[in-house]
């Protein structure tokens, strides 16, 4: 009896101990930065997209995800899963040519070019529609259907989508009261016109140089008015892309099959390799990854959309076959420790926080370099024109001595608000910052309320973790959104540091008025200036995408724009 117990005990220990954990796991390329341009040559916008190496036609490509995609209606798509799924069935005015390594080119998709800045002041834009673009029933796509798609995004019933274009056209945040879609069916919102079947024209009251970027979101997808089923379009969108939805069981499965009316010659980015795409919803991240690891049956051509959970990372890296099937890439989602500057008014304290931060320790505590990569800038490296700098160089583990020096003997008492689902992150920061002389009080906030509460101007906390993922990789969709003090409201602020500096605000205006191509280096300079002069936050990390696919799945890459797997090149190995 005693021997058997001892043997069982030994077996458990051996099973756990049989392999040594060494420090040679995968790591992400942290030097990688984005290069991005807006295509000036109309040839860039022409199809067909170059063939993917080794790609073959046929097969079913499966995507396994824990929860369903919140919206399929292109005008309502805004979640990451929705944004990477939409290109399969929805074409847009512009789109990104993306090599998955950060090299981006904005090209025309339904439009012949990524837009003409008619009077060079960003107030009037024109797009010419390509020939030969068709819906799933074979009828041609014209400027009328594209304009109708944009018009229906004014409908207050169709919630969830981006609101940039609507707000710019209406020149107001209350765009749905400024122009009532339901009362004006058949008409177009103010500023949007279709002079002929091939031309769509935007006229704004103010300059909006980011329009070509904003139109790359699925909200600019076309729809014929007679196919508009209102809120029901969410279940069965009308396709303009290489695939059409043939079966949709909400929360369980989406089946996309080839759309024979899609012409590859008109499309600069998409392919039509697999016969079918199937989204399967249900398995949690561990179960999804384990299915792909097992690699049997249809899972051989599957992708686990929830990524590799950190508990499974050592298993994946320890196995050469699995390593080959994994994709690792930084994403544009950046997390920062926001400092509520209304409460922490002393600049030296904010700078000391920047010196004190132990990024290395924090990243290990949330799952290591397969989950996060350190960052010292306010814009993520995936931003066009990104320049790396470190305004408060303190090494990977922080410099408590330098922080103490700045604090000059003070021990600021700060309250760190943290969601009650990630208390460990709070305790990690607390023990980190207390080494540098801060007195940190950890306050847990119910996870579902945390976002709303920290976005309130008079929230009671000094520090909280915040994230930002821009809708397009331009500084214009990051810095003014996060740090322009003139937009601070009572609730719903993105400027959670609540900085309001006149000099910086006027810089935002100056750069926003520049031609889009010239803005990029200016944003990088402004990023550094904000950090040096205001230190409104402690940049901590960008999320890292770590995915695993089956042995027969190919062509998947992580979108440089969204940081999630893109399916435009996906194929099934035969």
């Amino acid at each position, binding site marked *: 009896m005693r021997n058997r117990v001892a043997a069982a005990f030994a077996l458990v*220990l051996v*099973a756990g101990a049989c392999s*040594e954990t060494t420090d040679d*796991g995968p790591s992400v390329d942290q030097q990688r930065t984005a290069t991005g341009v807006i295509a000036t040559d109309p040839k860039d916008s022409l199809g067909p997209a170059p063939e993917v190496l080794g790609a073959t036609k046929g097969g079913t490509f499966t995507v396994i995800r824990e929860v369903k995609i919140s919206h399929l209606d292109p005008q309502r798509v805004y979640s990451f899963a929705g944004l990477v799924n939409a290109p399969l069935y929805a074409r847009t005015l512009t789109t990104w040519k993306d090599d998955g390594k950060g090299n981006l080119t904005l090209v025309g998709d339904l439009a012949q070019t990524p837009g003409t800045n008619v009077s060079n002041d960003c107030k009037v834009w024109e797009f010419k529609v390509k020939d030969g673009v068709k819906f799933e029933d074979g009828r041609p796509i014209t400027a009328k259907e594209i304009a109708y798609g944009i018009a229906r995004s004014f409908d207050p019933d169709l919630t969830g989508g981006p609101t940039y274009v609507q707000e710019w056209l209406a020149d107001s945040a209350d765009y749905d009261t400024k122009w009532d879609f339901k009362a004006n069916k058949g008409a177009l919102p103010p500023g949007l016109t279709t002079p002929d079947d091939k031309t769509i024209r935007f006229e704004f009251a103010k300059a909006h140089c980011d329009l070509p970027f904003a139109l790359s979101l699925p909200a600019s997808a076309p729809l014929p008015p007679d196919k508009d089923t209102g809120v029901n379009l969410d279940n069965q969108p009308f396709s303009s892309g290489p695939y059409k939805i043939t079966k949709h069981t909400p929360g369980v499965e989406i089946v996309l099959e080839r759309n024979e009316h899609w012409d590859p010659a008109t499309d600069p980015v998409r392919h039509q390799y697999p016969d079918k795409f199937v989204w399967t919803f249900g398995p949690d991240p561990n179960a999804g990854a384990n299915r792909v690891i097992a690699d049997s049956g249809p899972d051989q051509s599957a992708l686990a959309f929830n990524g590799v959970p950190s*508990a499974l990372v*050592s298993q994946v890296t320890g196995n050469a076959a699995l390593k080959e099937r994994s994709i690792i890439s930084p994403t544009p989602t950046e997390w920062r420790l926001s400092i509520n500057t209304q409460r922490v008014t002393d600049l030296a304290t904010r700078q000391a926080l920047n010196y004190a931060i132990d990024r290395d320790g924090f990243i290990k505590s949330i799952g*290591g370099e397969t989950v996060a990569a350190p960052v010292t800038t306010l814009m993520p490296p995936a931003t066009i024109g990104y320049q790396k700098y470190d305004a408060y160089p303190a090494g990977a583990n922080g410099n408590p001595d330098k922080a103490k020096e700045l604090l000059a003997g003070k021990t600021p008492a700060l*309250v760190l608000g943290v969601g009650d689902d990630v208390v460990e992150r709070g305790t990690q920061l607390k023990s980190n910052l207390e080494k540098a002389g801060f007195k940190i009080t950890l306050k847990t906030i119910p996870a579902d309320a945390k976002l709303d509460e920290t976005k309130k101007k008079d929230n009671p906390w000094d520090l909280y973790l915040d994230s930002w993922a821009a809708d397009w990789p331009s500084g214009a969709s990051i810095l003014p959104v996060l740090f322009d003090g003139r937009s601070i409201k009572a609730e719903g602020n993105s400027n959670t540091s609540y900085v309001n500096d006149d000099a910086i605000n006027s810089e935002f205006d100056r750069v926003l008025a520049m031609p889009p191509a010239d803005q990029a280096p200016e944003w990088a300079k402004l990023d550094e200036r904000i950090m040096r002069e205001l230190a409104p936050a402690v940049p901590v990390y960008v999320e890292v995408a770590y995915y695993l696919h089956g042995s027969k799945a190919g062509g998947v890459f992580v979108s440089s724009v969204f940081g999630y797997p893109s399916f435009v090149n996906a194929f099934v190995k035969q």
Partner: protein
Amino acid sequence: MSLSTEIARPEAPPPPNGIDIAGRSPGQLAWARLRRDRVAVISGGVLAFFLLVAILAPLIELAYGIGPYDQFQEKLRRSDGMPLGYAGGISGEHWFGLEPGSGRDIFIRLVYGIRTSLLIAVMAALLTSLIGITLGILAGYLGGWVDAVIGWITDLALALPFLIFALAVMPTVELRFYGPRDEVPTWFRVAVLIGIFATFGWTGMARLVRGQVISLREREFVEAARACGAGLGHMLFRQLLPNLWAPILVSFSLAVPAYVTGEAALSFLNIGIRDPTPDFGVMIFRSIDYLQGDPAYVFFPGITIFALVLAFNLFGDALRDALDPRSAMSARAAPPPGGGVDAAATKDAR
């Protein structure tokens, strides 16, 4: 502890050859039986060990040289935060390895985790026993409307859904006592946890005691005492209570492990103890995610809570056998220890 002569039973060992007849109290008899039971001795030893560890935790920390909040993140792998080395980072310095991510020492956190868990479980069991005994003995002896009212309250407490109540109470109480910028101290959460357990846990004990008292109150010794004009307090605490210690002790010893696991479950639901306070529940439920990646992290807290709960349960069983040997045969066959108590008790009353 004085049992009335009524209870003295003939199974005292027969005098060996009529020589050396020593008078032994029922307590001494039970103790002798307990010492003869190997399961009881072993499980009792394990319990004593855990109690010692819990009490001496600061001394162990001193000898071990590492505190429960010390982090060793430089000993974690860069790519996924797993401890370097073999079996979750086990080494001469870190006996049970390190926690993935935070890099805290598992051994010293277990030592302090035993302390937290045992404190909550024992306090909760004591409080529930106190409430249960008082209400049960009153209801059983007085009967009538007192019994009816206490019966209703018991039914009410049983009908309230425990988890939903706990989920609702914890944040509400926190908000009531602490402002949006105040940290909620660990002792407060511990006190609220014990309170929640006490609110719900006393019903079983109350019913058990009530049943026992009802069967005892018609006995001759009770009638005799009543005839002598004994007051209510004397009746309850001098005459009745001493006859109830056996089932109460058994029930208590079985309640403690239930609270250990109950507290662990509540921590998982975010309404119990929170990180960074060392605690079994937090450790086990955090470790479940690493079952595949770092089994050692699951193994040590798991095996410890298993040993602790098993030792309590076995000891409770053995204690019942020792206090009431007539139940030994049937109790060993009875499946759940909790049900066994009642079976033994009713038999005793017959």
